[in-house]
């Protein structure tokens, strides 16, 4: 039971304030501002308890969203709600910024009224919300449509309305992964994991039933046991172990639990079908080899080599290596073979950017850093971090099939145009030096 929801700008001014329960007083707004936003020490915990009142906050660029409650609520529920709230707002007016919030405050209040009722989260599905909370002013609705909304909001399939028709049945499927790594200077992997999402965009007529298949180890193993010979044996090598996953509400969990098959009636338009995490057999797209040498008190020599570690036919993009510099840097000289490198004083780092890089290649940068002698403590040597984008899934996930059945309408699985894309991005990809 969320007692209230506040949105602040970076200065702590209240942009949106919606109180759902009487136990939250007006002073709660100030309490959060004083104790969290304007706190002397930066508050790192997303949950703050002030005077027996709990504040759960998330930050989107410069905007603070805070949910308040006096009760002992499920914190994950509150955060899930806040994230959903962010998604909904983003779907309605794009980026969440002070400007946008101010321009759309009526809409936000309307949304808040709809998705939270007396502090209990309600339907927060963008697709469903968009049918009755519109941005284009009031659209007069026929009785039939109104009845439809009611049945949809209260019915079993809240995320899809009936009677959708497309001339071309089309389906887009993106596998988006972010790979996180922490590596020791000697090249030992200290920790690594991939968190991935399967995002879909569907333009399908009627109420189709979909079935999604991937190289999940459990499924593959089961098939192998069943002895379905050739196919299973081939992909068995490439099967992946998924540590945990979550699904969009449209997926039938009972079926997943019993048969491990993912079947669902998709919402219309954009949605995120599933999220997952893997920690085993991760393909690390890049290897960073740092070399740091301190020459006296006033000079530091840094050499960093990056090696791309994937099929040479693939191209990595938007590569950026960030090499932190000591706080008493007074000058930097840089030499790099490829891309552009620059010393950014405002961030205390050398930023090396490469637009494109093929697999199985290597490149290097060397820097001479001049220091101002101070009697301060030694430099802590923060890790070198990296950003990139590669056109494959570092976890090794493969989409095996996506079948569409619509018995009522006359199109079959073969008529649906399907697009599949893999994008691997860097999460926190760091190498100690």
């Amino acid at each position, binding site marked *: 039971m969320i007692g209230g929801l506040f949105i602040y700008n*970076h200065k702590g001014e209240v942009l949106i304030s919606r109180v759902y329960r009487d136990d939250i007083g007006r002073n709660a707004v100030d309490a959060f501002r004083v104790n969290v936003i304007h706190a002397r020490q930066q508050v790192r915990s997303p949950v703050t308890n002030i005077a027996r009142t709990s504040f759960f906050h998330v930050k989107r660029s*410069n905007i603070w969203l805070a949910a308040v409650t006096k009760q002992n609520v499920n914190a994950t529920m509150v955060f899930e709600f806040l994230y959903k709230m962010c998604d909904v707002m983003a779907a309605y007016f794009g980026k969440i910024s002070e400007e946008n919030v101010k321009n759309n405050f009526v809409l936000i209040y309307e949304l808040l009224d709809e998705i939270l009722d007396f502090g209990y989260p309600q339907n927060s599905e963008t697709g469903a919300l968009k049918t009755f909370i519109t941005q284009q002013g009031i659209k007069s609705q026929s009785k039939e449509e109104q009845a439809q909304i009611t049945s949809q909001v209260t019915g079993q399939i809240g995320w899809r309305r009936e009677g959708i028709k497309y001339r071309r049945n089309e389906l887009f499927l993106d596998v988006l992964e972010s790979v996180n790594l922490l590596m020791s200077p000697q090249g030992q992997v200290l920790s690594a994991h991939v968190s991935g999402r399967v995002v879909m965009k569907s333009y399908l007529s009627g109420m189709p039933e979909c079935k999604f298949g991937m190289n999940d180890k459990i499924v593959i193993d089961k098939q192998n046991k069943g002895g379905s010979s050739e196919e299973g044996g081939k992909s068995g090598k490439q099967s992946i172990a998924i540590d945990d996953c979550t699904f969009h509400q449209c997926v039938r969990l009972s079926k997943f639990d019993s048969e491990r098959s993912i079947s669902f009636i998709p919402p219309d338009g954009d949605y995120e079908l599933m999220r997952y995490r893997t920690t085993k057999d991760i393909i690390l797209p890049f290897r960073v080899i740092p070399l740091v040498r301190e020459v006296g008190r006033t000079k530091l020599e840094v050499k960093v080599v990056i090696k791309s570690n994937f099929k040479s036919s693939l191209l990595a993009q938007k590569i950026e290596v960030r090499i932190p510099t000591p*706080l*008493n*840097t*007074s*000058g930097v000289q840089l030499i790099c073979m490829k891309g552009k490198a620059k010393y950014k*004083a*405002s*961030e*205390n780092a050398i930023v090396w950017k490469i637009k494109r890089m093929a697999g199985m290649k290597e490149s290097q940068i060397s820097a001479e850093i*001049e220091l*101002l002698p*101070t*009697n*301060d403590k030694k430099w802590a040597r923060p890790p070198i971090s990296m950003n990139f984008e590669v056109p494959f899934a570092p976890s090794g996930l493969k989409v095996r099939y996506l079948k569409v059945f619509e018995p009522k309408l006359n199109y079959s699985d073969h008529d649906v145009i399907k697009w599949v894309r893999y994008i691997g991005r860097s999460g926190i990809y760091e190498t100690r030096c």
Partner: protein
Amino acid sequence: MPAVSKGDGMRGLAVFISDIRNCKSKEAEIKRINKELANIRSKFKGDKALDGYSKKKYVCKLLFIFLLGHDIDFGHMEAVNLLSSNKYTEKQIGYLFISVLVNSNSELIRLINNAIKNDLSSRNPTFMCLALHCIANVGSREMAEAFASEIPRILVAGDTMDSVKQSAALCLLRLYKTSPDLVLMGEWTSRVVHLLNDQHMGVVTAAISLITCLSQKNPDEFKTCVSLAVSRLSRIVSSASTDLQDYTYYFVPAPWLSCKLLRLLQCYPPPEDGAVKGRLVECLETILNKAQEPPKSKKVQHSNAKNAILFEAISLIIHYDSEPNLLVRACNQLGQFLQHRETNLRYLALESMCTLASSEFSHEAVKTHIETVINALKTERDVSVRQRAADLLYAMCDRSNAKQIVAEMLSYLETADYSIREEMVLKVAILAEKYAVDYSWYVDTILNLIRIAGDYVSEEVWYRVIQIVINRDDVQGYAAKTVFEALQAPACHENMVKVGGYILGEFGNLIAGDPRSSPLVQFNLLHSKFHLCSVPTRALLLSAYIKFINLFPETKATIQEVLRCDSQIRNSDVELQQRAVEYLKLSSIASTDVLATVLEEMPPFPERESSILAKLKKKKGPGAVSVTELEDNKREGGELNGGGERGPDTSAMSTPSPSADLLGIRSAVPVGAAPASAGSLLVDVFSEAGPAAVSAAVNDDGFLRFVCKNNGVLFENQLLQIGIKSEYRQNLGRMYLFYGNKTSVQFASFTTTVSCPGELQLQLNVQTKPVEPLVEGGAQIQQVLNIECLTDFSEAPLLNIKFRYGGALQNLTLKLPVTINKFFQPTEMASQDFFQRWKQLSQPTQEAQKIFKASHGMDTEVLKAKLLGLGTALLDNVDPNPENYVCAGVIQTKGQQVGCLLRLEPNAQAQMYRLTLRCSKDSVSKRLCELLAEQF
């Protein structure tokens, strides 16, 4: 100060600051600062030397970044370089950076000090000022060490500019405040005093702050400043408002200087020189006169400045406390302020009046304002002002207006703020006691107090009313009647029940004649409150019931019934259950005679400082209650309790006195009670220890405590308690040692040995039997020592105790309190005899004398008890001075007898004693003198 030239605008700095101000978020700000820091680092690192302007600009930026809360770890060197610049602005920024960011970096401090020294010795006044300001702003000990000797020289040098003098005076003041030991007084002090005569008012203002501070520590060195200050003051006061030009503030001539002068004068007693004094009185009168004049301006600053001087003058008048005329005038002036529109003025007036009220000259004058003050108490909106009004009422109270004031305070109490209620209650209680002429009024007042503000009546207050009722026969009947009536209210406060229970238990018989308050009615009334009360109160009521049984045998059956019922005799609270059981048994077994003895009326309490007053003092901190008031109270208290002064009677202890009530009053608990509270088993041994030596028992080490007494606890820790009981006859003594195991585990291999070190072996013969090696947990064993004194001795035998506790070996060595004076035989003699013998023992070696400070109170009774405990005879009417104590005795040893005469002369003013001993043997007088000097 040279004007800032246009080129010094430092555009870069302005741009940087406006960039920071425009940052949307903290992150953006940090980014901007990082960028700037990198820029400055590269500039400072750069090969080409920076010019003064850019150096100044970057140092300024660093300073700004530091003030925003970021760490700066470079740039100090550049700032120090700026110090040696010749441009004012550059130097100024350098000093600014140093005084904000200086750290105890050794190499830099040396450079900085060097630069400061150069500036101090330069002829340029602005540079000197900058250096002085820097020293004062940093104000560290290092600075004081480096410059404390230099600055006085600058201050008194003839050719120093006025502005520099001003800075130097304030700088010296700052250094003196941080490290007074480094600022040495010297010949410059006399010249500093003469700065009061300086032409320049600024110099005088600065110097006077310094002089005030210095003179508080060394009043004699600066004595001459009084006459100078007076003449300066009179010049200012008598000047027309336009004379002082720059130093006239809203038509008031030099208000700050006047206030400081008046404050300086408050450090000294009134001037002895008649002329000076006359002049000062004239000044004060002029100030008072000016207050009466119509204001020259409607501006608030004008009246503020005027009143500031006036209040300072009034506090000086109060400080002198010798000019009745002025005091009365001041009082009248304050009286006008009591009704002023300004809340602050009313507050200040009330506060000053509080101090005026304690002066004998103005007390009457203050009293004339009583109506206004009472009105203020009732109608004032600000709580702090009301508090002052209550303070003032308390201060102005005396015998003539006590009734009115107490009544007013009581009526105010009903609506008073919760924050001041407790203090108000204490004050009412004190006033009621202090000025009680008629004790029935006192009892009424306190009972009213409990009724109105029961929650705020602390224990001390109701203890006190019981003390007084018990000590005064004439009020007991009335008190019983009044509490009886008060208890009839349907709802009364628990404190009221406590007082009622106690008083009816003691004096219920006095009102039992009236059928309306027959014993049974009294009992039923008390018992009707019983179930609503807390445990301590119930315990007290049970004691009251058993007293009822004694007072009114006819209630016995009823009360026994009550005691017997399950809710008492099986009460879950141990105390209540024990009382119920014991009282029940006592009432059914003991004969009436025994009952009457056991449950005798409480003996009168010894008189001492009112515990309520002590509490008030504790609440307000020392100094809040003036000394005069205290003495006053003692005098009044003496009158109040008349002849009711007795030493605490030991029988009071055996009376079943309620534990919760009167132990608080008896702060001087006899020694025996201390182990009792520790739950020890040794109570029986020590219960007869004399109460007299009690107050001495607190701080002294174990051995010295026993010089004047024979029984008590010698040693105690978590494991073991050792008690001593001893008796001496002639040259023989017997000492019982009691070893108590305080733990629940047994002590194994418990052995004790008594040894006489060195030549003591020949002087003292100690015999003992070994003790049993096992001491059970919680058990106590006894050991007997037989002591024989062969000849006089000065050492003490040692007692060594070894035992195992939980496997660990414990070893303990104690000095046994066997001292030479234990073998005293008292000798009575007449005055003539005494002085004859005194003269006989006139050889210088025979006499030992010591003058020492009293380490305990100089209470006559305690002193007497100690001298008796010494073993000598205390001779009355011997010394012509009745304050002195004279004792005589003979020390019995096996070989010889040593006669001793003792004279103790207390000096109450100085809190000193002179002790003279004359003995027929030199070593004895020395030893006795040593021992006794520690006792008083």
